């Protein structure tokens, strides 16, 4: 399948850190310094392509098997990202088996390109909900501080003097009837927002409370009910808030 001349050429380019081992008949596993972050070597194999002049560099489905330990490509958006990675690296996908067919003299380049694609695909784990989840407050902050500047947002506002335990994430329009915004992406800060709103009501503060939820699924029904009862206005997602925040704040400020 591969003559020794090509193997020697690849070996030289890998500074001798390259070898092939016949895993099954006519399926050769590549041993080269291409590793996953946990120390496992990338699963790359060479085999004959249907076009006899080409060599197939393939993973026999092991990249998606590895990804599936903690991540599934189960939404149109994830599929779009996955297909984009494949297209950008000229990788083909046949029922989860990834491959690229190259001329023998270009195996070295093909291997590097293939390894790069494997690395990008296994890193799709970083798109996990929980990773995005941890970016919620950063995204909220960036939006408020860039797009809502005209409403003079104040970050970390304490409406009751000497009571720093009752903190508002952002305060708009603090001179007249202020809008107190709370970002909520888990049960703990949903409860904290509820307690703060109830305390401000008990203290007879003049304010409007605004909740921005990361999504409706981040808190249970009871927490949702408590929050809905305590707060004046809720946005069910950051997307929704980004779409309507300006319009909402303008209306609120007109009334105040």
């Amino acid at each position, binding site marked *: 399948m591969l003559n020794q001349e090509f193997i020697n050429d690849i070996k030289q380019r890998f500074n001798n850190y390259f070898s092939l081992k016949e*895993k*099954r008949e006519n399926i050769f*596993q590549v*041993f080269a*310094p291409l*590793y996953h*972050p*946990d*120390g*496992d*070597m990338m*699963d790359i194999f060479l085999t004959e392509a249907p076009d006899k002049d080409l060599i197939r560099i393939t993973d*026999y*489905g*092991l990249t998606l*098997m*590895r990804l*599936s*330990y*903690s991540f599934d490509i189960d939404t149109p958006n994830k599929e779009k990202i996955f297909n984009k990675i494949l297209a950008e690296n000229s990788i083909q996908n046949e029922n989860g088996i990834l491959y690229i067919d190259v001329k023998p003299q270009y195996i070295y380049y093909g291997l590097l390109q293939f390894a790069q694609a494997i690395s990008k695909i296994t890193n799709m784990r970083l798109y*996990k909900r*929980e*990773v995005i989840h*941890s970016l919620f407050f950063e995204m909220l902050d960036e939006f408020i501080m860039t797009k809502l500047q005209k409403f003079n947002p104040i970050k970390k506002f304490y409406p009751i003097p000497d009571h720093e335990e009752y903190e508002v994430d952002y305060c708009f329009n603090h001179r007249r009837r202020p809008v107190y915004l709370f970002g909520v992406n*888990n049960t703990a800060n949903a409860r904290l927002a509820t307690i703060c709103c109830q305390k401000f009501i008990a203290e007879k503060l003049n304010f409007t409370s605004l909740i921005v939820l990361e999504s409706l699924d981040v808190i249970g029904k009871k927490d949702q009910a408590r929050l809905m009862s305590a707060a004046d206005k809720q946005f069910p997602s950051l997307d929704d808030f980004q779409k309507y925040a300006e319009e909402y704040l303008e209306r609120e400020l007109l009334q105040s």
Partner: protein
Amino acid sequence: MSSLDGKRKFTVFIRQHNLFRENFSIGLIYHSEEGSINLFGCNGNHGEIVVDILNPVPHYGYHTHIITAELLDNNVNEPRKVELTNEYASFEQALAYFCRYVNIKDCSNYFPFINQPKLFE
């Protein structure tokens, strides 16, 4: 899966390649509020592994991956501590070892072969 007190949640993944039966992985993931961490895994003899990528001394064989406090302290969420093992030499033996190691209660209800004694022990 959950801890005995029901407070901590885990999932186990079990994968075996349908052509290369020696390529398998059984792992335990812990789901905390901050995210999930791959705590422990039993892997098959799928090829080469290195303990330290920057100082690679390749190993071959059945091996386990485990996370350590030191790795977590350094913001590494990959179970990068790799150890070769003689505890198993097949997928079935790896599954039995995994269940014992992780201390899964009632696992024999789901995998009856797990309590089968070894002939040569």
